[in-house]
């Protein structure tokens, strides 16, 4: 019997097969490290007198805690400052490469790996961050780990792991205009639920997935964890190779050819069998938005806020009631009438250059709704530089948005970028949990296009809601026709 993509990558990394119910010992090709989940792991090494086994397969950057303003000044919050300084000290002590705030390669860890060309097909990639699933877009087996496992990988470059089950998620057909890969993944999570992927590696397949750019594929794999899955993968193809070619750590010359030949073998065999299969039609996917406090509580933007009394399942009804109370929403109200205070464009889900370009296209020639604060935070310093080289920063500023330095920022509010209690955000990030973006803050997860349209209109909106077609100077606006 043939193998799935996930099984091929798994099998190529088994150092030792587990027997009698013991897990396999898997070799790890790339370990990404950041300031929040690593200090206790390094401390564990120090206490045990253990070195880092492979500093040359490890890379660190600062992202979760970093400010997005005044990055050349000392970090104001002393605990954030200590945590970042601790990472710098640990990197120096254990000989690990680090990209610190102010360095052109600093940024969200899941952007740094791909942009340096370190994330490649067929690798095992881990990081003490659940959104490590992002790297699966390259056909890598990539998953988030806890701090004990971070210490384990630092010490041994391996992890004991029980095999995952495999689930195929096939998205057929073509996405309608105005819908994006974010809408695909939000629809998948709403369909299978936040626990639907537990124990599985998801493999995204089908015509709609093949048509996506590398960055759009990263958005989908990024949120696999929001469906409960450890990892999400997409088989590598020409799109993947084109993205990688010429990046600093991509293979060169004869090594490139050898690598590509191997990468082409990384696809699910015709006769392989998945443990579960899900099929979606891309043509049905409207822009999606979450109404509740977990990423599975989402609906097409054209819908209404659910009425809990109509939900049969006790647990789901109670969860919906609680979510609506927290979110301050009236059952049955149209989602398009929900007013927002803040629009956040950024994160490891949607803070890449293509996201910024798609937003800038809608912002150009328009100004923000007067009641809305708009934050644009690039996923890395390189992305910021690229956006500035293309003049996108000026479009954001003319629109009335704030243009920040790179980091996780308001996605999880560990730095000063937070919602105030009761404030409501349309956010291109990945989690709408209670208090995620600031205590008492309310989050609606959306695509960059919905975020941009919402920033223009002040209520949850899609591109189709933008009626105006001309800028004040008479030049045509995006979209030219709706």
């Amino acid at each position, binding site marked *: 019997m043939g193998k799935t993509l996930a099984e091929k990558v798994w099998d190529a990394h088994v150092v030792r097969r587990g027997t009698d119910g013991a897990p396999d010992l898997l070799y790890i090709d790339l370990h990404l490290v950041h300031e929040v989940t690593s200090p206790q792991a390094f401390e564990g090494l120090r206490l045990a007198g253990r070195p880092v086994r492979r500093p040359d397969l490890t890379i660190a950057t600062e992202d979760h805690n970093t400010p997005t303003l*005044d990055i050349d000044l000392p970090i104001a919050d002393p605990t954030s400052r200590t945590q970042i300084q601790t990472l710098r000290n640990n990197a120096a002590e254990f000989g690990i490469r680090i990209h610190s705030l102010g360095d052109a390669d600093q940024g969200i860890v899941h952007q740094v790996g791909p942009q340096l060309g370190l994330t490649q097909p067929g690798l095992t990639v881990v990081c003490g961050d659940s959104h490590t699933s992002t790297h699966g877009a390259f056909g890598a087996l990539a998953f988030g780990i806890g701090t004990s496992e971070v210490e384990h990988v630092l010490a041994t470059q391996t992890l004991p792991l029980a095999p995952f089950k495999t689930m195929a998620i096939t998205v057929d057909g073509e996405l309608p205009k105005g819908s994006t890969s974010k809408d695909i993944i939000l629809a998948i999570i709403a369909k299978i639920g936040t626990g639907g992927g537990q124990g599985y590696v998801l493999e995204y397949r089908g015509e709609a997935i093949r048509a996506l750019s590398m960055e759009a594929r990263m958005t989908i794999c990024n949120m696999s964890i929001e469906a409960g899955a450890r990892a999400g993968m997409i088989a590598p193809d020409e799109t993947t190779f084109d993205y990688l070619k010429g990046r600093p750590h991509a293979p060169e010359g004869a090594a490139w050819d050898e690598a590509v030949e191997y990468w082409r073998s990384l696809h699910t065999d015709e006769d392989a069998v998945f443990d579960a299969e899900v099929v979606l039609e891309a043509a049905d996917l409207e822009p999606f938005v979450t109404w509740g406090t977990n990423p599975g509580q989402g609906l097409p933007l054209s819908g209404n806020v659910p009425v809990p009394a109509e939900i049969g399942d006790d647990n789901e009804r109670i969860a919906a009631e609680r979510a609506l109370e927290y979110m301050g929403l009236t059952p049955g109200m149209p989602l398009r009438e929900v007013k927002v205070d803040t629009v956040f464009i950024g994160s490891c889900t949607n803070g890449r250059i293509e996201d910024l370009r798609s937003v800038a296209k809608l912002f150009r020639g328009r100004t923000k709704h007067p009641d809305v604060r708009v934050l644009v935070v690039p996923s890395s310093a390189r992305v910021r530089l690229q956006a500035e080289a293309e003049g996108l920063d000026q479009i954001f500023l003319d629109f009335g948005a704030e243009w920040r330095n790179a980091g996780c920022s308001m996605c999880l509010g560990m730095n*000063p970028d937070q919602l105030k209690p009761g404030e409501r955000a349309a956010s291109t990030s990945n989690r709408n949990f209670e208090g995620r973006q600031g205590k008492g803050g309310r989050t609606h997860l959306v695509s960059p296009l919905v975020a941009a349209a919402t920033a223009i209109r002040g209520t949850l909106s899609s591109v189709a809601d933008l009626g105006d077609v001309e800028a004040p100077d008479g030049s045509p606006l995006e979209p030219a026709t709706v």
Partner: protein
Amino acid sequence: MEKFTQHTGVGVPLRRSNVDTDQIIPAVYLKRVTRTGFEDALFAAWRGDPHFVLNQDAYRAGSVLVAGPDFGTGSSREHAVWALKDYGFRAVLASRFADIFRGNSGKQGLLAAQVAQDDIELIWKILESYPGTEVTVDLEARTAHCQDVTVPFQVDDYTRWRLLEGLDDIGLTMQHDAEISEFEQTRATWRPTTLPAKHLPPVEIVSARPVHADDALG
């Protein structure tokens, strides 16, 4: 790691599904660089509510948490497990756990016991009708016991063995050091390494500045 065979303690009914790790410990508490002292951070947003279960005297000293399905979803933060342990919890019972949370629990000696939802409902009723009732969790027998109710739970064999023996994963793996070295010899030379570092040319990064007065705070 401390051995875990059996534990008896006050059961705490947490009638919520999808208790994510941001609820177990909000991100603002993750800035600490120590591995202990997270008890104040546990369920921080809910602890301010006098009706919250841990604010009721009968449950305050609880050590067995009985929660709704999909406990521990979201972020990989092991701090969620540390906070539960620092507060005094030794076991969590739920019908479904997020994978990373379950893994982290096993590394830290917190038992994540998977119990059928119907059985969770039974235990909830007892704990709510008789606040302060103790629950006994028996890892050898894989059962949870509360008044006259005994229910089975699932935990994978390997995690159970490690918990019963109190074994440390890194020590176990280090026994296979020769096999790891052997595997490393077979790694294709074109596979990437982070060192020596390769970069695009260095460029100066200009800092963004606050446009609102309150942005500079924090």
